[in-house]
């Protein structure tokens, strides 16, 4: 097995450039998630890697072998489609056997490998069923088994969980991650769901409008993104225009904080995650603002606070806190040191997320 390199990949359709000079490295055995809003070119990128879309420019390498131009049937890449794309006229067994039959393996070998793959996804009992006789989650697992039974060099996932309801999605996501780790297959996983991206990825790549915005491991990308777009697309965040003064900044409600990355170009504001702000009732001391909205979510409570003319989102975790009523004057305590975001040309992702 080997890692995957994508260099300068461009795909122009009649009207749009779906991909515009994309460079991407997927190290051997790692899982990279492509995260971006709908229409940003994720599927086009994945299909180019699979060989079922011809890129206009650029190259793709598996290890040191150049593979763009190799037809899909000779790439040995497993792909899981958003629609699952199970063959409706074939049983589960036949669906899995298809790829092995194309490789002209002996029948006994096919039977053995299909059984193994079905075991991996816990679907042995369903071998004789037709796809339409399965639930969505079961179809998804068959699609996964069909992609891995051929022992692919690369696994490609195109939003495989997006058609399932939330609970099932969580459990399948964890199973999928465990399986990918176990098999150690180099993988690209496309999604527009940031939680999924964070949970699965060794590395997250943020895409927008056919280009890569930025990339990084989930922790550093969440905590210290470069661009406003990333901060807003990867979870929610408050981007607050603060007055900068050297390595200090003054927040609209009067507080001062230090800035951990002063002196960047074209700053959009400081990022404060809603879950990183502490909130307390003013109780006679100088208030920073007052509660404008409240949403009780069970696991926590989300507030919107009107503070110094800006609306600040604050998420309080846990169920045991006293709820604060709308209109109550409050004080806000952001972290000691704040992270500045660059505006970039992608703008805000607020409307997209």
């Amino acid at each position, binding site marked *: 097995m080997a890692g995957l390199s994508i260099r300068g990949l461009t795909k122009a359709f009649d009207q749009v450039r779906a991909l515009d000079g994309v460079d991407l490295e997927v190290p051997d055995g790692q899982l990279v998630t492509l995260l971006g809003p709908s229409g940003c070119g994720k599927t086009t990128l994945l299909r180019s890697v699979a060989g079922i879309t011809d890129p206009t420019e650029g190259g793709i390498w598996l290890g040191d072998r150049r593979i763009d131009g190799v037809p*899909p049937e000779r790439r040995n890449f497993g792909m899981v489609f958003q629609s699952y*794309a199970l063959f409706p006229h074939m049983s589960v067994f036949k669906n899995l056997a*298809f790829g092995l039959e*194309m490789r002209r393996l002996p029948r006994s070998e096919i039977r053995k490998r299909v059984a193994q793959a079905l075991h991996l996804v816990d679907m042995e009992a369903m071998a004789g069923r037709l796809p339409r006789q399965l639930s969505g989650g079961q179809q998804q697992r068959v699609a996964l088994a069909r992609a891995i039974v*051929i022992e692919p060099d690369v696994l490609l996932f195109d939003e495989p969980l997006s058609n399932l309801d939330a609970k099932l999605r969580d459990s399948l996501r964890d199973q999928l991650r465990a399986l990918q780790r176990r098999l150690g297959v180099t993988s690209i996983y496309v999604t527009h769901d940031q939680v999924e991206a964070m949970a699965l990825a060794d590395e997250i790549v943020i895409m927008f409008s056919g280009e890569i915005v930025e990339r990084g491991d989930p922790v550093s990308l969440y905590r210290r993104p470069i661009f406003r777009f990333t901060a807003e697309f990867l979870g929610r965040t408050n981007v607050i225009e603060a007055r900068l003064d050297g390595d200090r900044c003054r927040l609209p409600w009067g507080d001062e904080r230090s800035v951990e990355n002063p002196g960047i170009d074209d700053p959009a504001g400081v990022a404060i995650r809603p879950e990183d702000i502490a909130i307390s009732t003013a109780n006679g001391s100088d208030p920073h603002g007052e509660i404008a909205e409240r949403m009780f979510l069970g696991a926590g409570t989300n507030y919107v606070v009107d503070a110094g003319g800006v609306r600040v989102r604050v998420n309080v975790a846990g169920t045991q806190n006293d709820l604060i009523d709308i209109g109550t004057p409050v004080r806000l305590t952001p972290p000691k040191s704040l992270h500045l975001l660059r505006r970039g040309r992608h703008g805000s992702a607020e409307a997209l997320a």
Partner: protein
Amino acid sequence: MSDTRRQKREGRWLAVGLYGYLALVMFVPLVVIALWAFYDPAVGWYPPDIVPTSYSVEPWREVLADRGIIGSLVLSLIISTTVTFLTGALAFPTAWALAHFPFRIKRAVEVFVLAPMIVPGIVVAVSLGEIFFRLGLTQTVLGVILVQTVGTLPLMIRILTATLEGIPGELMLAARTLGASPRRALMRIALPMAWPGFLAGGLLSFISSFEDFEKTFMVGAPGVQPLSVRLWSYLGGEILIFPTAAVVTFILLAPTLIIFFIAERLMKENVLAAGMGKL
């Protein structure tokens, strides 16, 4: 819940409507034909009698007395079967290409492909008869098969195109990623999935071939006489001999009915299999 119930109720009314229509266009004429085929020519059947007062098998005896009719039937079956398979084989690649053309081009090509459907059969027959004569295909079984295929192709192409357009493109792409060449993906995925189209198109092709008179007569007669051509000669030339015509109609209708019966069984089994798995 109530949604599915409403759908069921609507489905029932739809079924009633369709079967009512079927009764009107198939059953009523059949009864009339049956009465004519079995009336007694010695007694006659005149108004105001709604049904004949006496019955006989005289018209049948007359038609079936012709020994050649069995040979014609066999010839008809051979020709129609061949035409059906030939039509399917020729239509599939055309339909596949058509299903994947960009929309605009597709509509234009479709008009060309479907043109023979709107031109009256007799016009096609006369012009092709001339060409077939030059090619030495007149009065040959091959000639009859070819000329009938010209007639059956458009509908088959149309039906198969619609069927193939309904196959999600991702299935073919999935097959490719699993190691199938374009040709094998076509044979293993698109071809079997087009089965309902082949069934519907095949039935209509078989029937239209079995019943075709103009084209078959132009190219085949007098050397090649399948059932339709032979039976037409019983219709009486200038005046219509009604009882004989009724018998002829009956014989020509038989395969249609048999085929529709088979088709219904096949479809039902298919649907049943799917439905049972859902439980």
